């Protein structure tokens, strides 16, 4: 039966700086991924916007959606 170690962190910050570096890196990476995706979408949507200007706007899902069993 393993001894029950009850020592708790003493005079130590809750999060180590190493953990903070990891977390900040993840934040930066998520932000960059988001930016890259938005960039890809923006390129697409500007093309879409140009295209849709020449068409009359059509509301989506207005035609009856196929009923499911």
């Amino acid at each position, binding site marked *: *039966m*393993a001894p*029950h170690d*009850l*020592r*708790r*962190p*003493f*005079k130590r*910050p809750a999060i*180590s*700086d*190493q953990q903070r*570096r*990891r977390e*900040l*890196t*993840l934040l*930066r*990476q998520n932000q*960059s*991924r988001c930016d*890259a*995706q938005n960039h*890809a*979408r923006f390129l*697409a*949507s500007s093309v*879409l*916007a140009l*295209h*849709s200007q020449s*068409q009359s*706007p*059509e*509301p*989506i*899902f207005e*035609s009856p*959606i*196929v009923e*499911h069993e």
Partner: protein
Amino acid sequence: VAGIELPQKQWPELIGSLLSNIHQVPAHVKQATLETLGYMCEEVSPDVVDQDQVNKILTAVVQGMNASEANNDVRLAATRALYNALGFAQANFSNDMERDYIMRVVCEATLSPEVKIRQAAFECLVSISSTYYEKLAPYIQDIFNITAKAVKEDEEPVALQAIEFWSSICDEEIDILEEYGGDFTGDSDIPCFYFIKQALPALVPMLLETLLKQEEDQDQDEGAWNIAMAGGTCLGLVARTVGDDIVPLVMPFIEENITKPDWRQREAATYAFGSILEGPSPDKLTPTVNVALNFMLSALTKDPNNHVKDTTAWTLGRIFEFLHGSTVETQIITHANCQQIITVLLQSMKDVPNVAEKACGALYFLAQGYEDVGSSSPLTPFFQEIVQSLLTVTHRDDAGESRLRTAAYETLNEVVRCSTDETAPMVLQLVPVIMMELHQTLEGQKLSSDEREKQNELQGLLCGCLQVIIQKLGSSEPTKYVFMQYADQIMSLFLRVFACRSATVHEEAMLAIGALAYATGPDFAKYMQEFYKYLEMGLQNFEEYQVCAVTVGVVGDICRALEDKILPYCDGIMTQLLKDLSSNQLHRSVKPPIFSCFGDIALAIGENFEKYLMYAMPMLQSAAELSAHTSGADDEMTEYTNLLRNGILEAYSGIFQGFKNSPKTQLLMPYAPHILQFLDSIYMEKDMDDVVMKTAIGVLGDLADTLGSNAGSLIQQSLSSKDFLNECLSSDDHLIKESAEWAKLAISRAISTT
């Protein structure tokens, strides 16, 4: 053996034959049987033992613990066995009579003349406090009396357990109250009984008494743990549990002791003050802190006792951590006292290692408080001096003691992270300085294994520091431009660092390289040939999964930096990522980022991802099925499931976006029905978080955008696309709304051309 066989129902007679020993006369047989039952309960999961057998085990164990048991060895074995068997006693703790009986026997055992039995009985109480918190109300008064007596007069191992009981109750109540306050459920499965609030008038004086029982030189001993440390830690938890109510109970103790000639009293008073700074509201604390600040600064300079100075510097750090920063209304650091605070801290960094380490820690939180200060920081006039002082600390001969060197580099990191444009030239000057330090650690010297370990630690710290600097300088164009002059040299240093065999160093170097790739952009291609083998090594590092995880993140950084120039390396990278996903050895937390990384790769190489579709898509599909249905999952599992879903959805987004406008988009058509089904099912489960919602609605848009009219009818037929889109369009979260607007546009285009 029981641990292996019982879950497979292969040793049904074991428990029965063990229990038949209990009535044997020789005490040592009884003792050995109880020990065996204890080991068995430790190894075996409660759900593989029938309740009938659990009852028999508990009866035997509790009988062995009873005061009528004359043999102390038997009683001790029984008490330790109960500690391990508590997890089996769910049903018994729900029965009032059985619970009363178990609790009575445990409480009686805390009064045994044998110290080891008392200690083991308190260990049982600690375990009961977390496992059966909601059942404790009828016993809490008696337990308070028992623990108070133990803390006051029992031997240290027993007193430590008695304090731990209250720390553990605090842990429970902090968790419950956090759930009450959280906006997710607004409730908790277990009600808070406010044991700490009720016990407060007696509990706080009991804990304050313990603070006076310090050991000489405890601050120099890394492994130290004693009554004063446990008591102060518990006091801090009590403050977090009850907030403002603790302040008036502690203040008289502080006032009475803080100026006493005996260092123990001064230290205890300071430690009490530092301990209660997290929990109470700033309003309640600020008036006292304003007075205390001057006193603390003076004590840090003048107190003759190192222990007092250590705790004083730590308390200053806590003041800055919890009461200084943009979120706190009344500023305790002003133009008038900033200079003095910094002067004292920098002076204190020349003190003995344990005091200097705490001074670095205080400076860390002082800098952190100015994180969102805007373009001009109050630290700017002192920046050069602070950096110089920290570097001086790292060079101290005794910087290896008390984690001092680590604390100095970590503080330097925070000072750099929180710096403003005003001090960017000084951060730039730091680059060659830290590079030189790293270079020196790489010069060929014969080192003993002990020296090598220290060398590795230093390399890790230096890579960490460079990572922070690169990230800081890379975040604005002008500083990035100047920084780039060092890129080649810095990269060659990082590559040399990989020669050493330390997981921490590899991780730090990898993180730094990710930051460098982000700052460098397409030019990073020139390092790839040399760097690739280390990238592959990182992805293969199952054992040290943190290394694997950060390497996966760096692959994403490189994809975004190189775009299609990463293509020559993709076969190797994809092979390794697919192996990682199939591995049972790899920690599960790495798997969601691997899926996101598929998306990064696909977005970077576009239709060239074609050859990986046949491997990646089935993996995504089976993970999607696994993560779609989550009924009955606990909070931790739901959180993981959402991470997994987000990774899967990011992969789909990247793949669709990568294939857009390519003649090969039809290759994705066969996967569309399943992806729409996946979106349907997570929508219907109603347990996705905001991040998943944003990514999911984005995928719907990407699918419509890339597949166009081919997908229009599929989307119209899908069960919940319309409801899902409408829900996202009316979301309060602007990121979800933004993704939904995009999806709406893409879907309307896909449908209009159907």
